[in-house]
Structures are given as structure tokens and as C-alpha cells.
């Protein structure tokens, strides 16, 4: 099928980067960009392809991280298995949230607000419950063993992240070439028209959120393997929710390479800002907000949209008061 060659080309580039970039500082930046890319690729399935704009993807990222961490600290299980359980935990939370919000037909701004609320609820819970270590968080590292996945070196972390990103690129391309992907796009473009043509919006949105949550949770599970300390304000806080949606918006929503491109650009920008101003806590969030506003205002199709007019426009799901299109089914 078409479109896989470009992914192989990207894989080769990702494999060559460590030959050029050898400093731990830059490998670390590359790793955080790839991590953001994973989050964005997850968000992109639900937001970019299926058109359901989530403001709370940290709920899946944090769950992936916490499930992995809890399983590892309480059972001493093989980290590979913990990693898979982390992904499963995120997918399960995705299924539960999706079932609730899509069952009741929440769309647009309502969907965005409810996902944000879920992330906040999980943050508060993780901050108080004993199993998540409460406010003091969880420390996972006892004896790091790279051969069973835990990454002691930045190069190892980078390599694992790169493999995962390429894997998700393949999954996304396969989705594009499938009926499920076509139905996601149909729901994004016009849900009523999709229903009339035999698409079950509930079933397909549920599939979208489960796949989206699983990929984002994979990012969280990977995070724990590399940075062995997690706490609720970081994992369930706004930072990763914003990063997850910002990365595909910068690169181009509903495209295979949008999140990767967006993640690279965003993290280069963030590094540049840090170099200029020094490390001010919270500065990255200010920068993210600024970039988000500028992108939606001036470049709603993202960077890839500059070359491909078929990339959908990023529209923040704010209720439109004037000029709202009349609902077809409501006309007499």
C-alpha cells in the first residue's frame, strides 16, 4: 500500500540522529520531543482523525505512567509486562470515559470540558490516594536494568522512543488506509451524514478514544521507565494535556507526520526560549499557550497544511453563537 516508504525514510533519519547527536543534553531533548510526539500521535487519532477535541489527554498519559509504576513497585514484575499493563490501563480508562461521554452524545466544547474535568479528577485522586503515593508521588527506580527495558542511558531511552514512534506511524498509516479510518474522518467532517451512510458514531468514537488512549498511555509508561519519579501535578496536570493537542496542531492534524513535525518544532522552540530566558518554572506553559493561539489564528492547518490543503483546520471547540449552521434534522 502507498505511504509506507516515507515512514521507512523517517525511521532511517531517526536511526541516524544518534550518530550526529552524541551529547546527553541533545539526546535528552530529542527524547522529550519523541515523547511529546507519542502523546500527540495519540491525541491525533481522536482529535485529528475522528474530530473529537480533547483537553485532558493527561488522564491517559498519567494513567499509563501510574499503572506501570504501581505494578512495578508492588509486584516487582518484569518492566516489559508493566509497560504493556500501563498501556492496557490507559486504554481501559479511555473506554470508560468514551462510553460515558459518547453514550450521552457530548460533542465539541462539552466533550473538551468533560475530558479536562476527568484529568482534574484523576489528578486530585492520585494526589490523595495511598496506592499512588499521595502527594509525595512514586519512585520506581531500585536497580535499573537496561536489558529488561529500564533505560539507564539517554541513548537507550532515545532508541526505545524512536522505535515506538515509528511503530505508531505505521499504525496511523494503516488506519488511514482502512474503513475505520475513513469512518473516523467521516464523523469528523459531518456526523449526521456519516450516520445516514451506515456509520455508527458511538461505536467508532469509542474505538478512536481507546486507540488514542492506548498510544498516549504508552507515552506515560515510557516516561516512567526513563524518569523514575512521578507525581500527580506533573502527570495529570495541564502540561501534557496541552502538549498532546499542541503538537498535532503545529504539525498538522489528521496527518501521519503532523505530530512528529510539531513535536520537533515545539521542543526546538522551547529549548531556544529556555536558552534566552533561563529556566523559569511555568515558562513552557506560557510559550505553549502563545504558540497555540498563533497557530489557530494564522496557521490553522499546521505546517503540513502549508503544502497540503486537505489538512483540516484546527478550530478550538468553542460554542459558535452567530452564524451557527442550522441543524438539518431539526428542520420541519
Amino acid at each position: 500500500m502507498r505511504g509506507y516508504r516515507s515512514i521507512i525514510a523517517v525511521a532511517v533519519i531517526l536511526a541516524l540522529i544518534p550518530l550526529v547527536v552524541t551529547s546527553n543534553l541533545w539526546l535528552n531533548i530529542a527524547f522529550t520531543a519523541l515523547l511529546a510526539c507519542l502523546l500527540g500521535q495519540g491525541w491525533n487519532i481522536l482529535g485529528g482523525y475522528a474530530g473529537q477535541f480533547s483537553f485532558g489527554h493527561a488522564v491517559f498519559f498519567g494513567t499509563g505512567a501510574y499503572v506501570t509504576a504501581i505494578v512495578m513497585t508492588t509486584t516487582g514484575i518484569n518492566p516489559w509486562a508493566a509497560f504493556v499493563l500501563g498501556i492496557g490501563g490507559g486504554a481501559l480508562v479511555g473506554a470508560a470515559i468514551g462510553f460515558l461521554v459518547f453514550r450521552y452524545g457530548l460533542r465539541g466544547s462539552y466533550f473538551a470540558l468533560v475530558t479536562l474535568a476527568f484529568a482534574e479528577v484523576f489528578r486530585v485522586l492520585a494526589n490523595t490516594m495511598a496506592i499512588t503515593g499521595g502527594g509525595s508521588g512514586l519512585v520506581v527506580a531500585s536497580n535499573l536494568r537496561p536489558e529488561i527495558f529500564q533505560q539507564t542511558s539517554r541513548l537507550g531511552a532515545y532508541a526505545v522512543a524512536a522505535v515506538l514512534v515509528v511503530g505508531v506511524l505505521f499504525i496511523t498509516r494503516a488506519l488511514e488506509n482502512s474503513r475505520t479510518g475513513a469512518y473516523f474522518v467521516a464523523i469528523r467532517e459531518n456526523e449526521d451524514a456519516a450516520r445516514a451512510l451506515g456509520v455508527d458514531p458511538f461505536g467508532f468514537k469509542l474505538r478512536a478514544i481507546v486507540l488514542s488512549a492506548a498510544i498516549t498511555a504508552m507515552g506515560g509508561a515510557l516516561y516512567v521507565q526513563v524518569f523514575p519519579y512521578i507525581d500527580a501535578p506533573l502527570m495529570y496536570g495541564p502540561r501534557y494535556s496541552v502538549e498532546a493537542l499542541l503538537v498535532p496542531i503545529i504539525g498538522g492534524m489528521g496527518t501521519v507526520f503532523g505530530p512528529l513535525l510539531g513535536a520537533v518544532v515545539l521542543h526546538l522552540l522551547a529549548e531556544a526560549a529556555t536558552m534566552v530566558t533561563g529556566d523559569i518554572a511555568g515558562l513552557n506553559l506560557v510559550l505553549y499557550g502563545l504558540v497555540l493561539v498563533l497557530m489557530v489564528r494564522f496557521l490553522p492547518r499546521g505546517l503540513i497544511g502549508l503544502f497540503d490543503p486537505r489538512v483540516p483546520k484546527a478550530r478550538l471547540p468553542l460554542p459558535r453563537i452567530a452564524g451557527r449552521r442550522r441543524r438539518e434534522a431539526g428542520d420541519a
Partner: protein
Amino acid sequence: MLEVRGLTKRFGGLLAVNEASLDVSEGEIVGLIGPNGAGKTTLFAMVSGFHKPDAGSVRFQGEEITGLSPHVLAGRGLTRTFQIVQPFAGVTVRENIAVGAHLRHRGRREALATAEAVAERVGMREMLDNPADSLTVAGRKRLEVAKALATEPRLLLFDEVLAGLNPSEIRDILPLIRSLRDGGITILMIEHVMQAVMSLCDRAYVLNNGAIIASGDTRAVASDPAVIEAYLGHGAAQRLRAAPAEAAADA
């Protein structure tokens, strides 16, 4: 093939459709006409599953389908189009039609091939790779038909597929609708363009203020005094009848 019995829908205090009943037999083209706001689209929305009726029943191919979801009905062979065209604006004509084709063809390649065949049939072959939002009004109407056709329906509900087209565009699309019927698809159509209704429909139902006020042979329905008054106001039929006589008297 389609039996609608006593279908009723209220929106708050407004009785949009009041105990409407109609039948469509296999192989027919049946018109549903009536003034603006008569409840035609609401009736369609109930038959196709977009609205749940407050009372009444719909049977399709002998089976009770009242209240089933639109996607389930599409699966059983009942597909509607929309009065206000609903393209998947950001994607190409080919991909638009393929969404409909996926209902019977799971594989992407088969669905895209089916989409091409359907485009050929409705005369959109040259537009396959154009984005849907670049189409003219006539093109969008054709696309609306093509998407519905790609689901391989037994019964098509057309909601004003001719509205907004100029006379020559209407002339172009009439043979297409006839060819669909000849290909074995039964059609129930809401239409305002009377000339088209006359030329296409075997029978017609007239809806006014939510109720069916006339039905039968299209020509007979169009000259029914109750129907003329529904469109032109109370006493209009009498005046129309009188008008030729007066004209004769003046001469």
C-alpha cells in the same frame, strides 16, 4: 415495501407531523409534496431514524423498524439524503462516496473501486479527485445522491435533491433518478419542483400542517382543490376555476 402508519411528532407545543400514513411499493417513485413547514423533512427524519416518533409505526420490507438508528437502517437498505447537502467537506469526492461504499465493502480498495463505479453512474467521473467543498451546488447535489447510492440501498429517501438547481441542471439529473428506479431502487422523494414531480413520480402524497391531505395519481393530486388551497390559500381553487371563465367573459 415501506408502510408508515399514524406517524406523529411533537416539538413542544407544535404538532409537526400528525398521524401521517403512507405506503411505497417496490419499484415505485413516490413524491411527497407540500408547502414549506408542512412537516415533510420531519416525516423523513422519523422514517430514516433521525427522530423518534411520538406515536405510529414504520415497517420496511415487512419488518418493524420504528425507532431504529439511522446506521442500522442504512445497513438494512434504507438510505436518505439531506435537503441541506452534507458533504464531508475536507476530503475528495472519491473519499466521500467511499464512506457510503464501506457499508457493503470492508476493504479500502474495494470501497474506492465501488466509489469510482458509482461516480461514473452519476456523471461525476471527472470530479473524483476534487475536494468536496470545491463543487458547485449541482455537483454537491449529485454527490449527495452518489453517497447514498454507494450504500447499495433498496429504498432511497431523497429530500429535495433538485432544489437550488437551474432548469438545465434539473433536466440533466432527471434521467439519473429514472435510471436508479430502472436499476431496482425504490424512491420516495420530497420535491418542490412540480414539473419534476409530474415527470418522475407515479404517485404523490401531499402533506399540509403535518397531515396527509391528499394522495394518489400525481396529476389528480396536483389538481385536487384541497391541495391548491394548501399552497395558495383559502378560496384559491375556486378563483382559479373562475379565472378562465372570467377571461372568456372579458373577451
